[in-house]
């Protein structure tokens, strides 16, 4: 089914809608955010008028319904076929997931454990956005090497800021196109094309449950951003980090974690190394093994945020499922396409 929203200034916004899906949910899934608040047919914020097509209304508060023929609440309007709906607002008032494309210069490159680079970019000012670096911790950017087709996704490791600063932690993949460029040719001052923020791997801040963040390989950056965000907001939610690596020299420098521990006193950390050297006293095994051990003793089933390469993700997900973590409490980001 296709929904067409017609704004007061006659813009036509088209998007698909599944059977049983409400118009507001379908619009939001398509990146369109008409004014709305309760999402349950009570506040009256999403009122609109169906001018063509059949629909049904789900449960709602009668006084929130607009009077007159075709009056609906988008959050409770279930199309029964293609529908055309008039919105009481203008096109500009419909929120959009705008995905800016901007240019940024390499400001610094440093080693971040064996085989990884900490890359810092500085955005060039933008007419509409100025120097704002606007994202939700956990999201990523697409970086394109200028003059090439090489475009790769990298998660932001720092926090939203007003200085145009973007921090990444990039694990160099032997023979990889972006990895080779970064490891061998890139220099401070080089310019990259930056598109983002993208992605839905973000903290569910309304959840009352403890959080368990599981990262491996190149999947540390978004988790770092989330933890920094929690530290910045003095978020007192219980949180445990499981950070896995193949060898201990691939772990991030210890100062990084010490700083987080200082700012987040409730932070628990398990460093797990799969193939540790003889002196290793921490957990030996994969991050999935470490999660298993953590869940075995956890007092309350946490929300799990997991980010890493596909094989690690699969192992972590099946461990979580085996330990009875409901699917809705698992948030995941694959860092390899």
């Amino acid at each position, binding site marked *: 089914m296709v929904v067409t929203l017609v704004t007061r200034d006659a813009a036509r916004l088209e998007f698909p809608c599944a059977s049983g899906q409400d118009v507001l949910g379908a619009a939001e899934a398509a990146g369109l955010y008409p*004014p709305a608040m309760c999402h349950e047919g009570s506040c009256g914020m999403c009122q609109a008028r169906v001018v063509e097509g059949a629909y049904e209304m789900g449960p709602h508060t009668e006084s929130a319904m607009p009077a007159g023929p075709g009056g609906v609440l988008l959050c409770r309007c279930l199309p029964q076929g293609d529908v055309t709906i008039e919105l009481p607002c203008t096109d500009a008032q419909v929120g959009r997931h705008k995905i800016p494309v901007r240019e940024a210069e390499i400001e610094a490159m440093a080693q971040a454990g064996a085989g990884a680079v900490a890359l810092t970019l500085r955005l060039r000012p933008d007419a509409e956005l100025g120097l704002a670096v606007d994202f939700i911790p956990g999201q990523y950017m697409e970086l394109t090497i200028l003059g090439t087709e090489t475009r790769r996704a990298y998660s932001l490791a720092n926090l939203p800021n007003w200085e145009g600063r973007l921090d990444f932690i990039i694990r160099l993949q032997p023979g990889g196109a972006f990895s080779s460029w970064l490891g061998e040719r890139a220099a401070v001052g080089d310019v990259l094309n930056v598109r983002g923020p993208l992605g839905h791997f973000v903290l569910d801040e309304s959840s009352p449950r403890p959080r368990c963040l599981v990262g491996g390989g190149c999947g540390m950056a978004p988790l770092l951003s989330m933890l920094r965000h929690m530290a910045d907001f003095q978020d007192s939610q219980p949180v445990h980090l499981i950070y896995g690596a193949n060898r201990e020299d691939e772990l991030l420098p210890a100062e990084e974690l010490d700083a987080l521990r200082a700012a987040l006193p409730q932070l628990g950390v398990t460093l797990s190394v799969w193939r540790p050297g003889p002196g290793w006293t921490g957990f030996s095994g994969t991050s999935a093994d470490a999660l298993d051990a953590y869940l075995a003793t956890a007092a309350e089933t946490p929300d799990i945020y997991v980010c890493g390469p596909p094989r690690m993700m699969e192992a972590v997900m099946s461990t979580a499922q085996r330990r009875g973590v409901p699917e809705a409490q698992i948030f995941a980001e694959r860092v390899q396409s």
Partner: protein
Amino acid sequence: MFCFQCEQTSRVDGVAGCASAKGVCGKDETTADLQDVLIHLLKGIGQYSTRLHQLGQPDNAADSFIMYGLFTTLTNVNFNRAVFMELIPEAARIRDRLRAAYEAAAAKAGQTAAQLSGPAQFQPADNLAGLLAQAQIASVRHGVEIVGEDVIGLRALILYGLKGVAAYAHHAEVLGQANEEIYAGIAHALDFLAGEPVDVAAMLDEAMALGRLNYTVMQTLDAANTGNFGAPAPTEVLTTPVAGKAILVSGHDLRDLHNILEATKDKGINVYTHGEMLPAHGYPKLHAYPHLAGNYGGAWQNQQSEFAAFPGPIVMTSNCLIEPQPSYRNRIFTAGPVGWPGIRHIKNDDYSQVVQAAQAMPGFTEAAPEKKVLVGFGHETLMGAAGAVVDAVKSGAIKHFFVIGGCDGAAPGRNYYTDFADHAPKDAMVLTLGCGKYRFNTHDFGTIGGLPRLLDVGQCNDTYSALQIALALAKTFECGVNDLPLSLIVSWFEQKAAAVLLTLLALGVRNVRLGPSLPAFLTPALLGVLVEKFGVQPITTADADISAALNRQAA
């Protein structure tokens, strides 16, 4: 969770109250339950505070904590669970401190300290799961099977009115105005509620006492606002942007606005008001800042599209906040009692990040063709014009006064207020206050007796000013307020409006038109009392209510 404190409360299938995982406003179950627990503890503080007041040993720090704590629980104020996880143990500590102080003070006065029960003894759990398990006894509906709906409804009326009182009192206190009567009055109401009252007459008396207390509180807030920023004077406010960097300030707190104006002085940043901050332009000492550029947008329910389109940071100083959309989450800041998880909160009046955000963002690239509205008709200005008004009434140029005041909201039924203002006869003067005015304040009302026909009296607490004028007119014409050709058309949304309504009733103002819907916590029996005892009338249609108001006058 169960919450039915505001006008937009869920009425799905005719059942009143937000009782699912999330309220209509976006307040989630956990936060709602924690708010209930906090209020329960505040009652405990109120129990001891009341006795300390009686012994002449008040603890004003505890009393201010009560006001702030209650304020965080108003509609559209604080949605951040983490804030309540901190306020709850703090409340318990304060309550225990007061208990010790009370026992010592009683002993010193040669009395035996009373053994208080209920909230005075309640021990909150030290973890979230435990607190949620306890929330049931703190629910507004606790005990309904025993005491019945009417008692629950009246207790709710008192609690919600009290929240409004506390919010106003907090605004006044941060501007340096507070007094014993207010502190003791608020503590008293909590103590009263802690006793789980069941006597309807006693509860009605308490509600009226609260209405009178709110009159004092609004008067004190008026003194705080005018004392700090001068008496409002008629002022034209630009409602269109000027070119340049920009900060938007919403909510009701004039002190926060003042601090932001100071923090942005000579920085090339323009400050715009939003929502209930519009009346700020009328205050001479705020108006004097050249970078207080204008007003942007309208009432709170439009904030998502307005904030998304604003090219700079936004500061929310009190209600009404709704869920920030992704496009402006990182540039909206909360202050004072306001909060949302993951949204930056201003601490210690440090606005440096807001300034930085304003400078990093482009601001308005060009000015729009100028439009203006007129604000600033506080009681001083109106008293100054009283002579002209009285003459206009005597000459018949003004035949009626309508005060169309209160909140705005998203419900379609609120069109009533637009129609009411637009359809009021040309020989009627319209006074307005609260954010409901955005429905009509840009319409052309013309003039009457040499005065603008639409007078913007200010924020909802400036009902105090409107009452001053009514009282002055009544004095001049040697009659009661109810004998004046004056009708009050009140649109309510949240708990400050509940406090204002109690004030009107306590002062004996009759025939208040209340809408757009009636409070869900008022049972048919309680509504019967309001109608019979106080002449409160639900709204019907604008035209019918206008002619009823005019005919009542003619009759």
